[in-house]
């Protein structure tokens, strides 16, 4: 004990490490761990059989497919277009650039229900955009995906942007003088530097999409087996005063998303190591 403490003290650069660590642990416990453990405790009132029954009915399984599928696809699209948006914001100058920059944060600030109602109105078959499309967006799984893309965009842009700003342009110039094409420069020089940030942005957008309720509920259509998201299943279990069943589904969601986030984090660590070797 004393040994580790002296070891830590020797290695820490900042003063007050003990106090800061204690504070961080207490704070995280109060804000994150205690509420989460309440979910697990409620679930623990179920037997294993009841747990399986609550979390694996066809309706619940269909909702997992929709929620995880749409969230992954939305995060993927955001990774692609978020990168382009960040690139444009960092590398180019154009009129009203600050305004565009501020626009990116709007999905953060907007109450999610307002976003949901607005998106539904725009994409409904009599809406501004929906009326021009030959297929239906609002009230289908496609609508769910549209809403999740909307709320996830700022995560990618805001994690990639600062990294991109720090990329040393001399590296790119050096690549160019060595005869690299623009694409080679991007793929071999810029992208490896960006990829950890891009992965982080992807993970954040994905995690946010999983739990999203307000913006999705209006556009989803909420048809069982088709367009019912997992958070709605949880709400409808609560509506029957089935607290344990609701938390059971939540625990499954937490478990899967934690595993996925852990995988993404390891991928990120791997990318960083590889980048270090380069």
């Amino acid at each position, binding site marked *: 004990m004393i040994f580790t403490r002296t070891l830590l003290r020797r290695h820490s650069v900042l003063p007050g490490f003990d106090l800061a660590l204690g504070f961080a642990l207490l704070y995280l416990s109060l804000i994150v761990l205690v509420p989460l453990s309440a979910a697990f405790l409620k679930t623990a009132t179920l037997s294993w059989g009841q747990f399986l029954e609550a979390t694996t009915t066809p*309706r619940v399984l269909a909702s997992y497919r929709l929620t995880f599928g749409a969230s992954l696809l939305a995060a993927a699209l955001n990774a692609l277009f978020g990168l382009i948006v960040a690139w444009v914001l960092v590398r180019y100058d154009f009129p009203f650039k600050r305004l565009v920059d501020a626009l990116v944060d709007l999905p953060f600030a907007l109450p999610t229900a307002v976003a949901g109602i607005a998106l539904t109105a725009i994409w409904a*078959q009599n809406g501004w955009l929906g009326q021009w499309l030959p297929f239906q967006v609002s009230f289908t799984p496609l609508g769910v995906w549209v809403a999740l893309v909307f709320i996830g965009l700022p995560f990618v842009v805001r994690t990639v942007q600062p990294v991109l700003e720090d990329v040393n342009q001399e590296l790119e110039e050096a690549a160019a003088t060595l005869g690299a094409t623009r694409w080679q420069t991007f793929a071999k020089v810029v992208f490896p530097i960006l990829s950890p940030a891009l992965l982080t942005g992807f993970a954040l957008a994905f995690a946010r999409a999983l739990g999203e309720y307000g913006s999705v509920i209006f556009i989803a259509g909420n048809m*069982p087996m088709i367009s019912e998201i997992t958070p709605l299943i949880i709400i*409808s279990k*609560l*509506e*029957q*005063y089935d607290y344990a069943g609701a938390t059971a589904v939540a625990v499954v969601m937490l478990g899967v998303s934690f595993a996925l986030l852990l995988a993404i984090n390891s991928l990120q660590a791997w990318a960083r190591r590889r980048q270090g070797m380069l």
Partner: protein
Amino acid sequence: MTASPPSSVRTVARHLLAVAALSLSFALPVQARDITLLNVSYDPTRELYVDFNRAFAAHWKARTGDSVTVKQSHGGSGKQARSVIDGLEADVVTLALAYDIDELAERAKLIPADWQKRLKHNSSPYTSTIVFLVRKGNPKGIRDWDDLVKPGVSVITPNPKTSGGARWNYLAAWGYALKKTGSEAKARNFVGALLKNVPVLDSGARGATTTFVERGIGDVLLAWENEALLALKELGPEKFDIVAPSLSILAEPPVTVIDKVVDKRGTRAVAQAYLEYLYSPEGQTIAAENYYRPIDPAVAAKFAKQYPKVTLFTIEDVFGGWTKAQKTHFADGGTFDQVFTRK
């Protein structure tokens, strides 16, 4: 210039003042109290209770001299009940379903199990029913429940899993089919066919109204009668018509005092009077003005023109009460899940 009065005069004046103040305080009645009540209710009663609270405050002031401020909380009926179970200190609850109030007795032991017998008429001071809102001129010719299962008719209703109003819709359709065919199996097929015609299940009643009215989706909206009449008033009768089915359900939104809370806060008398005032001619008139059906025959007669003639059955008659209906139809694996997951 003016010399101050001799000190003896000042003392006398001060005494006089003191005596005057003392006698004044005796002449006044006991200090009037300021009381606050919290009424936890469901979504579509917001306007009703704004009017009613004002009337009750005046009534209580005239009777006792005390000022009552009633705070209102609105939301989905089930969500509101859960808040009270989890500790929201409601003096009274006025919810959409007896089932939600039953849970306050069962789960949190806040009220006795026989709460519904404490006030007249199953503790429901006003009632409503389920009617159809259709587009102007009724292009699809919808007259009764049978028209809702025809192919090509699109029906909007919220999700019974998350909306109390939607449960009334579902049970109204089920009760109609059951009374008409006399067979449970046929009633299930009827409701299954009806749900096949539903393109969107909103999570709440107001959301379903928005989908129908603003997004232009659906040929018919299943709605509380008071919501339909309100929509007609707000949006103009030139856009929509109300169609009354031949048979529908008697929706009885119940009210009760929360014993544990009023005993703790010392507000039982006023909370009790608040709910009883709902049954008075004034309370009944306010309910009728907000398109609920009054149970007082005299007030009902006065507003009779407002309500279409519908034969009504009760949930007690057809389904054996809320707890049973909830278990058979809306619990996980119940008939609602069966007709939807069977593909």
